[in-house]
């Protein structure tokens, strides 16, 4: 623990391990002066489950399913990054159709995740009717996911060298139906988030991450792009078949003409990305070649190839929250990977929280913390330690504080 110097004016507010914003634990320690945040310290590890260590007793195909269970929202990006790392280490070529199918699942996951985040963000500022609106829309995407993969959340679609299920022509109408639903409703969504007085009041100018900080702290994904740093694995390096499609970096100035790096920009960024995902999926279906979907359909044969292989590789993928990277080292004669390192996007977005939160108010903690879309946590209680006195704020009270601030600002 860092030694904390409490002067007369400031006091400390620990937030978490059960956290204000999302559904997983992380712990913040705030140094507060009145209502203003002077300093922040983040501590992690409350849900460290030794997944990498557990992989030492599993073969590469079994690790795919372990990777899928790292996160419920990114249940596609971890196995796919692992599969790409193994493919790079061994030199497996994925068939073209397999690569195109991988794009569809990746973009579907991104839309699901951004819609979920939009609802959470609305909830954090006390705008619960928008939470229900966005999650109702997200339900359409989950239905489509179930239709394409057989599951709503853990999709079990990834295989080393391709994917496990094809998307045939008779399935296209259902995909277009969902995409058209989003196109029709996109204007409504944009109007709710970007023209609304409540969102503007609470989000413009809050939680600013500057271009320099985003670059130096190696932030990734929508968090860094909303500050104007052009980092997007889909455009950076040709992988899957993204290089065949017409895509480019998106930053919030595409809509507003300027980049502020605040919470409002991060909302714009994610809305623009939903629109981009619809476009990418349409292009993918349009250009999809015929052919095999997986390099080696026989699992025992694949496993024996992997057992003989020796080498190391990295696998990158642009997950909804940013770049995910897996490192794999394989040893000849062993079924199990020698080393497996998982780096989720939130890992790089931890340090940027500090400049974002400094100078903000207690009531802004939920929305600013949630604005990076941390794959981590939700507040059930907050302990406020005021010298000798110790009292707690539970999730409802903190949420009420946030709602009250919105009301105050609207008067």
């Amino acid at each position, binding site marked *: *623990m*860092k030694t904390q110097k409490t002067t007369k004016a400031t006091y400390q507010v620990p937030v978490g391990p059960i956290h204000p914003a999302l559904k997983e634990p992380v712990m913040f320690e705030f140094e507060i002066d009145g209502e203003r945040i002077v300093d922040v310290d983040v501590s*992690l*590890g409350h849900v*460290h489950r*030794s997944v*990498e*260590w557990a992989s030492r007793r599993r073969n590469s195909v079994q690790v795919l399913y372990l990777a899928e269970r790292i996160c419920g929202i990114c249940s596609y990006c971890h196995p796919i990054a692992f599969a790409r790392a193994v493919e*790079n280490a061994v030199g497996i070529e994925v068939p*073209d159709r397999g*690569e195109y199918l991988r794009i569809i699942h990746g973009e579907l996951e991104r839309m699901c995740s951004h819609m979920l985040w939009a609802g959470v963000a609305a909830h954090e500022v006390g705008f619960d009717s928008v939470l229900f609106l966005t999650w109702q829309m997200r339900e359409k995407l989950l239905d489509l996911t179930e239709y394409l993969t057989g599951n709503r959340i853990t999709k079990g679609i990834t295989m080393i060298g391709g994917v496990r299920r094809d998307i045939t022509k008779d399935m296209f109408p259902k995909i277009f139906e969902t995409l058209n639903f989003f196109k029709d409703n996109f204007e409504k969504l944009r109007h709710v988030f970007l023209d609304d007085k409540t969102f503007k009041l609470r989000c413009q100018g809050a939680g600013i991450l500057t*271009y*320099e900080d985003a*670059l*130096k*702290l*190696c*932030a990734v994904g929508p968090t860094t792009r909303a500050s104007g*740093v*052009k*980092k997007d694995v889909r*455009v*950076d*390096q*040709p*992988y*899957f*078949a*993204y*290089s*065949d499609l017409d895509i*480019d*970096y998106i930053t919030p100035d595409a809509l507003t003409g300027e980049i502020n790096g605040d919470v409002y920009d991060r909302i714009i960024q994610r809305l623009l990305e939903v629109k981009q995902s619809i476009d990418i999926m349409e292009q993918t279906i349009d*250009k999809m*070649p015929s052919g095999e979907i997986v390099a080696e359909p026989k699992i025992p044969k694949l496993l024996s190839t992997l057992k003989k292989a020796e080498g*190391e*590789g*990295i696998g*990158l993928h642009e997950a909804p929250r940013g*770049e995910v*990277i897996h*490192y794999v*080292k394989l040893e000849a004669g062993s079924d199990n990977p*020698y*080393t497996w*390192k998982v*780096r989720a996007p939130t*890992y*790089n977005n*931890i*340090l940027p929280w500090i400049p974002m939160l400094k100078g903000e108010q207690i009531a802004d903690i939920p929305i600013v913390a949630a604005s990076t879309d941390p794959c981590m946590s939700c507040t059930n209680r907050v302990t406020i330690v005021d010298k000798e006195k110790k009292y707690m704020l539970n999730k409802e009270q903190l949420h009420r504080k946030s709602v009250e601030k919105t009301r105050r600002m609207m008067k």
Partner: protein
Amino acid sequence: MTDTKVLDANSVVKSFKEEFKTKIKESKIEKRSAGIKKIEYYHIWMKIDRSIFKKSIKHLCGIQFPHLAVVSGNDLGKTIELIYHFSLNHGHKNKVVSLNISVEIPKSNPTIETICDYIPGALVTEREKQEMLGVIVKGIPDSRRLFLPNDFPKNVYPWRRDEKGLDKMIRNLHEVKK
């Protein structure tokens, strides 16, 4: 900072070799291609000597400020290998080159210099390497544990494969002091 020059994989390797000569123990450019158009991309793997580690990071920042994805590590028996996964050329479509710099340090003296003074974003991953591999990062601005709880036994490093690894602790969990 926005308009950076595009560096190709060969020139990056060449620039390192000219600067550090034989201290670059091994370098390899992995060429891959994607999509129907088969556009190529590159992963550079470079093994460097420990003595020039800090200088090489300085050299890299001099060429172009890189993106540090993460530092991963292997226990290779007598030595610990740390691999720094960088990438260059961000903002240029299809031009990003991954640069993996690997450095081996002996278990008898497992120290490495911090790179937080050049890349502040390296702090989280350096803290993780300290607790998971038992590496000592010299000059790290914050040396607390990151993921492991404060009451986790000292001298046990989960990613090690030797006697300091987890196996013994897991077999004798009843002996672990709270």
